[in-house]
């Protein structure tokens, strides 16, 4: 037993409230966590023009969608911030890798910041790994500041164990002409609480999000994504694709918030989810908040079973229903996996998916 702490409060609060019976306004947590600070962080491939050092936190004013509880916890536990700075005009040629390697019973909190100065470009790949059946706790907060004309590409791969409790708080700001890209593979973990909030404050700033998820077993995946448009002609595109199996639970909240003054802004959010068990529970709440006339906001969702046509077509070629389900799940996730350029990460995801689906 290490250092037991209590985490009590609200995670993933909605930016606007709705009916309480939906139980989507926030997640009330009351957790006793063994914060033994075990687990490793391995930094690989620091590109030229990129600096990485501890105690580099400067983005106190950047907040996301996970709620204030995560920041309060980080401060209470005095978690040091890993500061990543990309010099102006630098185009980092290789992804900076942050590998978080955890084992049975580990409990770790991490905090990091990425600041891309004017005209720079960087890819940061965060891998969270534990053994498939292991339990533990991993909470992490990542803040992003994309200065004028810069690009931050954040890749997150969650391959934590089936009994891991995991929360994630990603908060970012994009200034004029800057872009934040997020590629996220949410495959592991037992209880996952993911909050991502991006503010497009700069003119012609943009956000592109692609999230693939797999919910299986008893897994809980609670997601709160918020894109706030305050900059003129800012644009956002968010796609969520995945599959639910067994008796898993998924709550997805996705908000596009057009603030007054964001003239010419465009936001789009799409969800494609396949449901592969009678016992799954899927809640989806796609919100558009619009305080500006001159915007275009769209939402779309397709959620449900595999179509009879697909099952019939595959069946007529001798493929059994369970195989079809595995194939279609892989196809959904592959559409996000392929966006990751790093072959090693792709391979690890592939292996995790195959093992997960074999054990389904």
């Amino acid at each position, binding site marked *: 037993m290490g250092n037991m702490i209590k985490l009590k409060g609200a995670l993933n609060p909605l930016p*606007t*409230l*709705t*009916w*309480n*019976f*939906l139980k*989507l*306004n926030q997640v009330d947590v009351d957790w006793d966590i063994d914060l033994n600070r075990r687990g490793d962080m391995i930094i690989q491939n620091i590109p030229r023009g990129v600096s990485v050092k501890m105690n580099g936190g400067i983005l106190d004013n950047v907040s996301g969608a996970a709620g204030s509880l995560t920041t309060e916890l980080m401060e209470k536990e005095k978690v040091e911030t890993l500061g990543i700075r990309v010099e102006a005009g630098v185009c980092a040629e290789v992804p900076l890798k942050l590998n978080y390697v955890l084992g049975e019973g580990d409990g770790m909190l991490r905090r990091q910041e990425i600041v891309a100065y004017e005209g720079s470009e960087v890819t940061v790949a965060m891998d969270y790994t534990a053994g498939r059946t292991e339990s533990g706790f991993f909470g992490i907060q990542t803040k992003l500041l994309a200065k004028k004309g810069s690009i931050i590409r954040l890749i997150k791969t969650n391959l934590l164990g089936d009994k891991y409790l995991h929360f994630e708080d990603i908060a970012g700001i994009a200034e004029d002409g800057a872009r934040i890209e997020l590629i996220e593979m949410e495959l592991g973990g037992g209880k996952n609480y993911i909050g991502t909030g991006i503010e497009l404050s700069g003119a012609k700033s943009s956000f592109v999000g692609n999230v693939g998820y797999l919910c299986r077993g008893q897994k809980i995946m609670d997601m709160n994504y918020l894109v706030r448009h305050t900059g003129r002609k800012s644009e956002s595109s968010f796609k969520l694709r995945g599959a639910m199996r067994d008796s898993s639970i998924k709550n997805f909240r996705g908000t596009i918030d*057009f603030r*007054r003054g964001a003239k010419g802004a465009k936001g789009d959010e799409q969800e494609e989810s396949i*449901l*592969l*068990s*009678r*016992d*799954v*529970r*899927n*809640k*989806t*709440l*796609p*919100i*558009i*908040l*619009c*305080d*500006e*006339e*001159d*915007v*275009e*906001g*769209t*939402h*779309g*969702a*397709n*959620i*449900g*079973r595999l179509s009879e046509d697909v099952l019939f077509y595959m069946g007529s070629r001798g493929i059994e229903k369970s195989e079809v389900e595995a194939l279609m799940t892989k196809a959904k996730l592959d559409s996000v996996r392929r966006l990751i350029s790093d072959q090693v990460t792709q391979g690890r995801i592939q292996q995790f998916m195959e093992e997960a689906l074999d054990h389904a």
Partner: protein
Amino acid sequence: MSDSKAGVKDVDLSIYDFRYEEKDFYRVDEGLTEDIVRQISKEKKDPEWMADFRLESLETYRKMDIPEWGPDISGLNMDDIVTYVRPNTEMKAKWSDVPDDIKNTFERLGIPDAERKSLAGVGAQYDSELVYHNVKEEVKEQGVVYTDMESALTNYEDMVREHFMKLVPPTDHKFAALHGAVWSGGSFVYVPPGVSVEIPLQSYFRLNAPGAGQFEHTLIIVSEGADLHFIEGCSAPKYNVANLHAGCVELYVGKNAHLRYSTIENWSKNMYNLNTKRAICEEGALMEWVSGSFGSHVSYLYPMTILKGDNSHVEFTGITFAGKGQNLDTGSKVIQIGKNTSSAIDTKSISKDGGISTFRSAVTIMPDADNAKTSISCASLMLDDRSRSDTVPALDIRTQDADVGHEAKIGRISDDAIFYLMSRGISENEARAMIVSGFANPVSKELPLEYAVEMNNLIHLEMEGN
């Protein structure tokens, strides 16, 4: 100048904004106390079970909180609301017997004329009580019952007792509890098995008294294989004090029955419209809601449908127009329980001149609802840069065996569309009016012609030059 940019005026409510002085009306005191509830019960000659029901509802009301989501209703103070105002007349079956001032009110609203031309029956409520109720003989001969709720309590007590506030229990929310305590007026409809009512019935609710509340209860039972179109209209003159509408509509749609429930809500802009509507559908039933929300200062309105029976269906078509000083929170709720059920929600909202429009919905598909389908589409049009429009649609899917489609769109009138129409010789203002009319068309085309015309008049898409 920004007003004229959109070229679309607020909904013109002036044709509804007239009033007559109260003459010898009976009023309870302002506020909500046990004595007042007992007084209402006594005045209405409630049976004992209803009197008890009211008091229990009052207790429930006191225990429940004001919702913390949705538009601000802090301007509504129940201590200032008069919950029961009875006009100086009994309910009549001939317009000629209705006192002149009240009759004139409904004539100006076009109700007697509509009755002659296109309705099978009419109920007209003035403040807390019905003042007129009539149904055509041929409809009566079909066995259809269309009467006021008070008469139904006497003549059809068992049926009322079996259904009254069973779909919307007082514990549902604070204003359902309030309704249970002080309800008065409203209509009761029973359509026997296999009977098709060829032309619609209509109830019209007029709230004339300043600072008053209207709490009418509508209970409709459409039996197996029967068919009904029911139209509900409502309006009030504008006062400087808050008025409250907390009605309740309960609809029972039997096996293979069909009910269309159309509403043109047109309350004045001092009204807090906290209304509750709910339908339950048995096997093979079809429920259709057509809803136009134009009036009120604040609205919370989400007609709900429970698809209990296999192969039952619901369609909800709605339009909301929020102008200056309005915060209209509208939408729909659906619970799909039976197998092979389907729901389709199609809504439009328009925000103008600082108005706030929110589309809010919840579709729940239960674990045994095999082969459930739902489709939700909401489109919002912003007509200026002072208004606001939000969409908050929730989906709760508890089974694999479902097909769910959702799309939402928020934006302004496209410059390309304006340019296209102008390139064909249409002025900019005409072009804008055409586009807004087209936007509202999916709702107006679902209404009978007379009401579509009324709705279009109501929208009053007048063009202005810049």
